[in-house]
């Protein structure tokens, strides 16, 4: 909201609504660099000041915010993101707003992922594009969050147990009605391949609202699960040997009213802009993977045999490709033409992930990248040497490898800014080192007796 008059309208609406609806508590939300939702609650009387001056707090305890000289930051609520939350406990109505974080001098705070996405979206706007995203969020319901025991799926541990099976679809139904009441339209939802795995597909929206929506969705999914005494997890690969949880995200660019990816006269209806955008995604995929797949565990999903991408390739139908161009019905072409990025998982920070994905695509458009041929089905059965000889690249196979690629990437540094780029690498290197020094059950089972 750059227009001050528009901002005033939004703020007036929020202040009036809070009074009319007797809202007792206003939650100011923001996101740390790792993608965890943070909240500061204020009372309605403090809101006007919060709008005008921001709420000052010490950011040094927040992941990715710490700086040496100046620890305080200002949270300024974004009135356009105001949403009542009617399901609060005790009948008291609460409301939430996402915040933009500023330095005490009023400049954007470099550690705020939401400002990073705003900056990247503004860059797309300067090039004449509006970025739209529509994610398919997968997750598991588990019997508990007790990490000391193997994860217990709800509808697998007790195969014939109709009650527990029904429980998970009841939970999903309750989740969807809460999402819709929060203004997050759900396109589809269903039980996924793996036991107790579910998927919720969100209807497309602009990049910033969608990142906000993903943050809200993760909270609502977990809240509703908790109310039903189960645990919901977005961990990318909680159970060995079954599908992991991804967050395939459909992307499109609109220029004014027109879908910039669509060209009725071009092959597959894909415009030159779309082809270059895809080429950008493919060229920069290895560099951005640390951000789209940020956990040690993320790379246990990106393995062959589970419809998760391993190669850097694009295709129209093959579901192992990194970028898929869904075949759209002829009459849907003008709005429906889009590309699906399939490596990203639901444990990412959506603001940062959308930022690097968009930056990669735009680099393809600005640099006039040429799109390679579509992967034919059998490349997925090639041996490693055949694949090499054809020049087919792989996604990073571990967090360590992904971080190496990210560290050298000007594109990622530029998209995230120095502050987050450096902090992220430092934090994730330390996560990798912790993992590397851990002795796993796999090693004990395999080596303890044998050696």
């Amino acid at each position: 909201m750059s227009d001050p008059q528009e901002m005033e309208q939004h703020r007036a609406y929020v202040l009036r609504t809070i009074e009319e609806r007797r809202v007792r508590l206003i939650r100011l939300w923001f996101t740390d660099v790792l993608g965890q939702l943070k909240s500061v609650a204020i009372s309605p009387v403090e809101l006007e000041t919060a709008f005008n001056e921001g709420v000052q707090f010490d950011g040094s305890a927040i992941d990715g915010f710490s700086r040496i000289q100046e620890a305080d930051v200002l949270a300024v609520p974004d009135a356009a993101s105001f949403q009542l939350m009617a399901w609060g406990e005790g009948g008291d109505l609460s409301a939430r707003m996402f915040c933009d974080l500023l330095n005490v001098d009023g400049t954007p705070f470099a550690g705020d992922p939401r400002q990073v996405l705003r900056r990247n979206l503004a860059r797309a706007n300067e090039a004449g594009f509006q970025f739209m995203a529509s994610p398919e969020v997968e997750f598991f319901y588990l019997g508990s969050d007790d990490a000391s025991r193997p994860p217990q799926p709800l509808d697998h541990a007790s195969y014939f147990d109709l009650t527990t099976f029904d429980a998970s679809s009841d939970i999903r139904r309750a989740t969807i009605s809460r999402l819709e009441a929060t203004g997050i339209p759900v396109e589809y939802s269903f039980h996924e391949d793996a036991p107790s795995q579910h998927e919720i597909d969100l209807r497309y929206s602009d990049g910033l609202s969608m990142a906000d929506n993903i943050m809200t969705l993760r909270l609502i999914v977990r809240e509703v699960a908790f109310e039903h005494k189960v645990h919901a997890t977005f961990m990318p690969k909680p159970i060995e040997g079954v599908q992991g949880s991804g967050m395939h995200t459909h992307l499109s660019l609109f220029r004014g009213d027109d879908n910039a990816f669509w060209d009725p006269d071009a092959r597959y209806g894909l415009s030159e802009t779309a082809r270059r955008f895809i080429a950008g995604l493919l060229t920069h995929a290895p560099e951005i993977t640390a951000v789209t797949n940020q956990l040690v565990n993320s790379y246990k999903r990106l393995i062959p045999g589970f419809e998760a991408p391993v190669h850097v390739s694009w295709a129209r139908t093959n579901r192992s490709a990194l970028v898929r161009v869904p075949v759209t019905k002829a009459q849907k072409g003008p709005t429906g033409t889009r590309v699906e990025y399939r490596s990203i998982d639901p444990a990412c920070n959506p603001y940062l992930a959308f930022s690097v994905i968009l930056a990669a695509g735009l680099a393809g458009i600005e640099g006039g990248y040429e799109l390679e041929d579509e992967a034919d089905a059998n490349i997925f059965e090639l041996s490693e040497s055949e694949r090499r000889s054809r020049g087919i690249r792989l996604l990073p196979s571990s967090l360590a490898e992904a971080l190496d690629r990210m560290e050298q990437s000007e594109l990622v540094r530029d998209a995230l800014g120095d502050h987050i780029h450096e902090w992220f690498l430092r934090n994730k290197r330390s996560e990798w080192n912790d993992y590397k020094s851990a002795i796993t059950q796999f090693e004990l089972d395999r080596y303890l007796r044998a050696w």
Partner: protein
Amino acid sequence: MGPIVVSPDPPPDDVVRCLDMAGCRWVASTAPRVADEPWVGAVVSTEGGIDAAFDIGRSLRHDEQHAVPVLLVVRGSELALLADHPDAFDDFCVAPFHPVEFEARLRHLLVHTVSAPSGDELITSGPLVLNVETYQAQIDGRLLDLTYMEYALLKFLASSPGRVFTREALLSQVWGYEYYGGARTVDVHIRRLRAKLGEEHAALIQTVRSVGYRFGESRW
């Protein structure tokens, strides 16, 4: 806060006692309505006959000028009839009731009451009521939790029911010409509005293919 209207007249003793204990002001249903002190809610007992109670409840809830939420006081033996009259009450209480329960239900009912509009700030279109003074919107008496843009879009559409607006017209009228987002922004907000209106009322906003959107049925 304005008074609660109680029916029938004279009102049942137990209801009156509870209202007094709860510190609520009340008037019996035949009392004249004072213009600047509108009712904020209603308690309707089936003591004066269940069919009459349903009729009164319905007319109070759907009053064009000033609808109020209705708490219905029923006997246990009448519960089975409620299912056939879902539009006659917002909540109910089984007599004999505990005063604490009655008060809790009443408070819950009133929490959802918007401050009373005087009439000309209201835009009413079918089940939808918008109060342009307070920015609040209700569908079938249920308050909608809208964002400003959702509210502004709904208000614009509902002000001209039956008329078709192109996406471009909505963009320039609701968002303003300066807005950089394209016509897809309109689609995104329409879908959010439909989600909040709920399945039952989502069709109030109709998509007119290749043209745009319309609130309610066509005028033709």
